[in-house]
């Protein structure tokens, strides 16, 4: 009798549960999206939507669609092209004049003026505003509006000014002043191809096409950026049609996506390099240039590119990619020559010496281990010292140079210029540099003050000669950006990893 009651209770529970679950099946969770709507998975939620503040790729990906930048780069040639500035010229060594595009309106209807552009620059320079991008614009002493022109004064002749202005988003001065920085970041208004619709903190941001945009009508009518930190979760989102496009994928994830006939991998070589830097000051065995050359010859670059990067990388001849200004095509690439490496190790008397390799989990441990094996094969014992990123940075950037012998890292200045790479990495006293060379310092300092591209290029050629001789660092390969997309999306990503929705098409 009581057993019957138990059975009845179970039956009742099942009677409720089964139809509920079945109902889930009737309404597919990945419902058809409106045509023109794109759902994008990125690793991180944007740190801010104020384009004057933070700068990292997932934050850029969202806010650069809400705002127009002063300049853009041609996605194929990487040449600077007009955007909010229709033309520009240098009026003297330290003054630049940009004609501001007439007729551009912010999405609240107010016109975009040269004063807004000047305000956008000066805001980043304002110490109280504490922009994380300050270092990128610190060459500017001030910006002013002169009629329809933006005038930028630099402290010194600044050859990299234009490249950084491609990252300058123009904000509406009146609105920002009216609502304040905090409210502006919560409800940004720009002149870009898309307008901000809503945000769920830590989760997603919704944009829709800006009907007032000056540059036409983009195919993507609405976009939802979702923060999905786990790579495997981004892949299943693509597979289950929860997302149309996913960024920041790994080579392994790309292989997985390739197996699904309805998904495609979109990838492009970027200006990011994978590199080794040596401690030439307190690096133990690495103080000897012969040991550094031995390391360069011991590494099987092809194996790194083919096995670990699964082809999503290209060989390079220095610490720069061919995309960047200053790349010397004539420089010979370091080659895999274990016999020569063994000879050099013996010559330096370093056979069996312990080399400490500093790294962090932010850098692919498989690559670090592959390098460890390569070096072991030529007689160097590598001790991997992995700490988390903040500790790694603290150690490596400490002026005591007491961090080990070799470190593995990745680098991109988002500026397509040698100045943004070899200056911070190797200039004496720089936080990343454990190398010192007066001739190198002189060359890169000079190259910072020369506008003429020919002369500048010649200076970098010489600087790279010095680096090739002293070998304080070593380029391993040029990295690719890897995206996954479903058949609705057609898009060619560019080397700058700019994520402009207006360059995408969606069905």
């Amino acid at each position: 009798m009581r057993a019957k009651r138990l059975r009845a209770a179970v039956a009742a529970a099942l009677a409720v549960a089964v139809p509920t679950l079945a109902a889930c099946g009737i309404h597919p969770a990945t419902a058809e999206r409106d045509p023109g709507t794109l759902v994008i998975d990125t690793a991180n939620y944007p740190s801010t939507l104020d384009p004057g503040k933070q700068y990292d790729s997932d934050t850029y990906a969202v806010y650069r669609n809400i705002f127009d930048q002063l300049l853009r780069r041609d996605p194929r040639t990487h040449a600077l092209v007009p955007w909010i500035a229709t033309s520009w010229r240098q009026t003297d060594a330290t003054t630049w004049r940009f004609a501001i595009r007439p007729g551009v309106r912010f999405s609240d209807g107010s016109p975009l003026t040269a004063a807004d552009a000047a305000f956008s620059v000066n805001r980043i320079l304002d110490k109280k505003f504490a922009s994380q991008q300050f270092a990128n614009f610190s060459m500017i002493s001030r910006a002013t509006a002169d009629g329809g022109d933006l005038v930028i004064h630099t402290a010194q002749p600044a050859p990299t000014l234009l490249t950084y202005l491609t990252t300058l988003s123009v904000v509406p001065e009146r609105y920002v002043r009216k609502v304040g920085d905090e409210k502006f970041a919560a409800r940004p208004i720009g002149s870009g191809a898309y307008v901000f619709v809503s945000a769920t903190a830590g989760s997603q941001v919704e944009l829709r096409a800006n009907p007032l945009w000056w540059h036409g009508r983009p195919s993507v009518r609405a976009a939802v950026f979702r923060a999905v930190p786990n790579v495997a979760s981004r892949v299943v989102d693509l597979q289950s049609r929860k997302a149309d496009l996913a960024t920041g994928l790994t080579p392994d994830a790309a292989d997985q996506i390739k197996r699904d006939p309805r998904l495609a991998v979109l990838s492009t070589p970027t200006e990011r390099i994978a590199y080794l830097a040596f401690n030439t000051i307190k690096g133990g065995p690495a103080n000897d240039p012969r040991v550094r050359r031995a390391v360069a010859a011991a590494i099987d670059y092809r194996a790194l590119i083919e096995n670990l990067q699964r082809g999503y990388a290209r060989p390079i001849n220095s610490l720069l990619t061919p995309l960047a200004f200053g790349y010397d095509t004539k420089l010979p690439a370091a080659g895999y020559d274990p016999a020569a490496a063994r000879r050099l190790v013996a010559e330096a008397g370093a056979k069996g010496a312990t080399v400490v390799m500093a790294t962090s989990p932010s850098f692919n441990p498989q690559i670090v281990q592959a390098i460890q094996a390569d070096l072991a094969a030529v007689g160097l014992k590598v001790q991997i010292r992995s700490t988390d990123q903040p500790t790694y940075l603290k150690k490596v950037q400490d002026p005591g140079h007491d961090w080990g012998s070799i470190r593995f890292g990745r680098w991109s200045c988002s500026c397509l210029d040698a100045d943004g790479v070899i200056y911070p990495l190797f200039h004496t006293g720089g936080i990343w540099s454990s190398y010192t060379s007066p001739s190198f310092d002189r060359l890169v300092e000079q190259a910072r003050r020369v506008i003429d591209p020919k002369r500048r290029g010649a200076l970098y050629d010489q600087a790279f000669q010095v680096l090739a001789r002293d070998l304080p660092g070593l380029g391993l390969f040029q990295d690719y950006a890897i995206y996954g997309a479903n058949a609705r999306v057609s898009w060619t990503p560019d080397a700058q990893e700019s994520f402009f929705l207006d360059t995408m098409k969606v069905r």
Partner: protein
Amino acid sequence: MTAVLPRRRLAALPATPRYIAGRIGQALLALFGVVTIVFFALRLSGDPARLLVPEGATAADIARVRDRLGLNDSLWHQYTTFLGDAVHGNLGYSYVQNRPATDLLAERLPYTANLAVAALVLSLLFGVTVGTVTALKRGRWQERVLMPIVLAGQAMPAFWTGLLLVLVFSVGLRWLPSTGYDGPLSLLLPSVTLAALSAAAIARVTRGAMLEQLAQDYVRTARAKGAGTWRLVTRHLARNTAIPVLTVAALELANLLGGAVVTEVIFAWPGLGQLTVQSVAARDFPVVQAIVLLASAVYVVVNLATDLLYGVIDRRVAAGGGTA
């Protein structure tokens, strides 16, 4: 506690104000200790300014950021400022997002609470049922089928269970959304993932408590008086097994409310767990401090509430409650 109250009244009034005040005092002391340790440990662990500047930044750029964040002040000054502000409910501004840490927590807490409660309900339903059934059917096929399931649930890590569930229900069957929060349906997979872990613990405790009670004389008496299984379980055993089950459930709840880090990351759940990971990675000191403070406060409150609940369930506990 002085036992001046007559025993009967004490039983009816399980928690005297003095007892509660004592417990709250202890709790505040514990919170203060935790926050102090976290405050100093964080500052030994890396420099947030280095993570905030662009790649090509100079030492001067980093120094400027440190200065703005107040990290160049003496540790003691930073600490006293933090305590002073904390007393006024100001836990500082996020270094990364430039917003009050309390605002960030307030945005994330509902998601975590939602998930925690759903997971707890599921694990209680499953755990108590399985624990009871396996105790009553000891050595029978029911136990042999259910126990391996419980063990598997506990043995499988969340990052594996979670992805497995997603592969079956989102990629394969297309029934449920794979990640993110949009509506109650998206709550299902993450809460099942979480529940798999806690349900096992609850099932084992329930089973143990049940077996212990089943050996008691009163059970035999009840059986002899003709009580069937259903009545035995609901009338006699439930109350007597509730205390250990409640203890485990409370600990699980406190755990879950602190943010289920792995599950939230797998399911892109915008709760405290994700915020914790990101803030620790970025060394966003004010946010980490606020999260730790909140998580320990939850622990303390849940434990206090459990102690008080014991008295409601079993008055014998309340009678001696002063030493709890």
